[in-house]
């Protein structure tokens, strides 16, 4: 209405603006009473705010809080206000299960957004299944799981790891013939590398041309491993690094790559857990050309991404804070959940689960993502190169969003499993 008035009478633009401001001022206080009917809908937030994973998970807590603010500004859900309940499992895996139980039984939340590492997800899984809760898990992971109580909004291995290795072996990626698999020592890297090994051998790469090394969480002394990678690359075949290193161990790893003079032209590396947030702590100039595989980069150009970035910078009020893939997956998952609740007309877990199947969201990655009955999203795959400013330049992406194969065909035990 206001825009119409302004268009018809250009002279009254100022008046229209004043009217708009007045309306906003009136609307501010008047929002709360409109929620009067019904208790608030509760959203649990289960992300580590301290300990080794705080570096990555704090931003996800902020993303959920931003989305709660967003839905309330739009009048809430089912006419009720949405309220966040934040707990801190402190990067302590058993504590995740305790906090999950507390959220479901004491705070009686309707849905939980949480977890980053697979070990924390495995820890809370029995709690969600026992109490029939609902968890949205926003991070790429190793697959081999499908719980009716979890919606996985990050990538499965076929949506990240396998396309990334295929890229390294392509002409554009440098035609790598030897692959060094470096990872942190826990379930995600070990399972992913098991899948990758099977995939590589299906592509004719011999076991002698694969190097596999694991390090503890928070490992900081990479000199030995990096010089072994150099030696590994000196066997007359083009080599590349596939990194499933997690958390802040990445910073000293990349610093060592830079100091030992490993250029992306000679030994490119592709990482599965390094995003804009992780690069914020390092000088990226020596790393230009190293790669990361995700389903979203902050540098994606799409109207949905512009909106997402605008929303984030308005919420966080710090121009230096970046967006990344798990934040996008949290955002997409939250929007899908609100759509499913609206469709089901309730927040009860069973109807919402049914309503989730087939929900679509125009995600910031620039594609429409759909929730399938296997509880996973269809997602595009993108490969980005590290730039000197800490952002990624997208050098390759799939033409369309591809559905998830959470049970990898490269793991022999899955041969008889029903897919889809």
């Amino acid at each position: 209405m206001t825009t119409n008035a302004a268009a018809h009478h250009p002279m009254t633009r100022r008046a229209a603006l004043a009217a708009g401001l007045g309306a906003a001022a009136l609307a501010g206080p008047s929002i709360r009473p409109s929620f009067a009917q019904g208790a608030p809908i509760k959203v649990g937030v289960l992300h580590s705010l301290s300990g080794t994973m705080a570096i990555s998970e704090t931003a996800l807590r902020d993303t959920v809080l931003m989305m709660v603010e967003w839905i309330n500004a739009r009048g809430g859900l089912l006419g009720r206000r949405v309220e966040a309940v934040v707990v801190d499992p402190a990067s302590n895996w058993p504590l995740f299960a305790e906090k999950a139980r507390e959220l479901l039984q004491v705070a009686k939340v309707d849905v939980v957004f949480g977890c980053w590492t697979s070990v924390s997800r495995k820890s809370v899984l029995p709690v969600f299944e026992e109490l029939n809760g609902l968890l949205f898990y926003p991070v790429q992971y190793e697959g081999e799981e499908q719980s009716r109580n979890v919606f996985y909004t990050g990538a499965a291995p076929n949506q990240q790891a396998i396309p990334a290795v295929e890229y390294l072996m392509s002409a554009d990626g440098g035609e790598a013939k030897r692959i060094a698999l470096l990872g942190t020592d826990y379930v995600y890297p070990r399972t992913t590398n098991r899948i990758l090994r099977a995939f590589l051998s299906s592509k004719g790469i011999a076991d002698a041309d694969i190097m596999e090394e694991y390090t503890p969480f928070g490992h900081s002394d990479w000199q030995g491993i990096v010089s072994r990678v150099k030696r590994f690359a000196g066997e007359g075949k083009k080599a590349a690094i596939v990194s499933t290193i997690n958390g802040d161990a990445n910073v000293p790893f990349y610093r060592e790559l830079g100091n030992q003079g490993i250029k992306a032209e000679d030994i490119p590396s592709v990482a599965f857990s390094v995003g804009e947030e992780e690069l914020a702590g390092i000088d990226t100039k020596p790393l230009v050309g190293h790669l990361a595989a995700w389903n979203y980069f902050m540098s994606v150009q799409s109207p949905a991404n512009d909106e997402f970035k605008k929303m984030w910078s308005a919420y966080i009020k710090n121009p230096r804070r970046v967006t990344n893939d798990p934040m996008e997956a949290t955002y997409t998952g939250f929007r899908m959940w609100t759509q499913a609740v609206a469709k089901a007309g309730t927040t009860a877990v069973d109807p919402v689960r049914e309503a989730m199947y087939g929900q679509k969201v125009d995600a910031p990655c620039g594609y429409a993502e759909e929730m399938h009955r296997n509880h996973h999203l269809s997602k595009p795959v993108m490969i980005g190169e590290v730039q000197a400013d800490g952002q990624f330049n997208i050098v390759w992406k799939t033409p369309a969003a591809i559905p998830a194969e959470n049970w990898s065909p490269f793991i022999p035990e899955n041969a008889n499993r029903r897919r889809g």
Partner: protein
Amino acid sequence: MGNLIRAVLVLLALALPAAAQGQDAFDAALAGLAGNFNQQAEAVERLGALGDPRAVPVLRALADGRLLKRPDGGGVVQPSEPAPPGAEPVRVNNRVRVALRGALGRLQLVSPDPGERLAAAEAVFRSRDAANAPLLEAALARESVPRIRAQMELSLAASRLVADDGEAKRAAVFALGATASTDARALLLEARAADPGLSAEIEAAVAAIDRRLALRRAAETLFQGLSLGSVLLLAALGLAVTFGVMGVINMAHGEMVMLGAYTAVVVQEALRGVPALLPWSLPLSVPAAFLVTALVGAAIERGLIRHLYGRPLETLLMTFGVGMILQQAVRTLFGAQNRDVTSPAWMQGTLTLPGGVAVTQNRLWIIVFGLAVLLAVVAAIRLTRFGLEMRAVVQNRRIAATMGIRTGRVDALTFAFGSGVAGMAGVALSQIDNVSPNLGTGYIIDSFMVVVFGGVGSLAGTLVGAMTLGVVNKVLEPWAGAVLAKVAVLVALMLFIQRRPRGLFALRGRAADA
């Protein structure tokens, strides 16, 4: 007159197409730089092959990400031209970068700058293209600097290795086999895979390289061990004072290290306004970190620890709590994100020692710094009045008190001193580890391990203990992997402590019983 004009016109007519052709080929290749990655790589190769010196600034701008693309799709903006509004930098991928390195190498082989010539010869070595051989021969004919000549000869051998001439190839295998370079080794193995005819010669050459490399690798492993040892030494030195000398089980030691690292962050931020001092922010952080953490240490000792002397269990719990409070305070103040302490230029990159052993600069400086801090601590304890009083109090508190030493003050100073040393270690660790609120938790166990292994109260033990653990860890790592190597070291240490509970350098006499 008329004839002369006609002659000039004919000459011009003859010369113009040639010039225009060169111009066309250059412009056509230049236009390709604005295309997709395939077109870019082709264009770069064409520019390298044309040998036109005008290509050098363009290619260099492309390599540095400074080359701009016209917004209207009309190709690239030459670096000499003014940038049109809305021009975006041309993005490249690794394939284009490889082509760029080769092309720039070819173009700069005859550059007047010796540094550029050396870099060019190295780049050409890596691009392994038979077409480079004549260029290198021409460049070698005028080169006089021995170091560049040597690199050019190697690059020539590398180019001949992929050529079709069997005799030149054989000579190239011998030339490359006389080096101790992993790159040469990789080239030889590549050549063997491409042409099995020379495999006997190649295998002999590779074996010769391997013999030379074995010694160098041993030296590099030793360096890595000493480097890890120096990190352990730095982390443990402060604890060697607070725990080793005073006997306080100080679980907040790691947080002192962390506070030191954050002091480096603060000093760096504070110096952003003074560009002249910015490269020196790290050395300036060292005294600042010492002061800050010494003050915090003194406050902890005066406020809390002195009430708990003689009650090790309570001290342990209380310092643990203090550590958690400090961690959370820093997290609230600075945020959970890692902070970056930029390495000064003199700490980046690799230094090649005589004999070809490559060591990373930052690690080298940390070894030097670790030893310097150790010497400073030893000097403070042995040579100063404060050190004398400290030793007196440790040996016999009551007699020291009767001699007029204010033991309470000495306790506070000793704890402050140990904390300050931990803070200085934090500045060094900011260069190799993440500056985050939980930086210290990763070092507390290692520090206790070093002090107990070396012998509580002995600084020499701390040095030998740290270096031993570092080297053993690095020697085991290639066989056992990083995780198992750490476990193996811990198990060995437990067995050792069973046999010698007082560690490597056990204190003897009355001091040991105090």
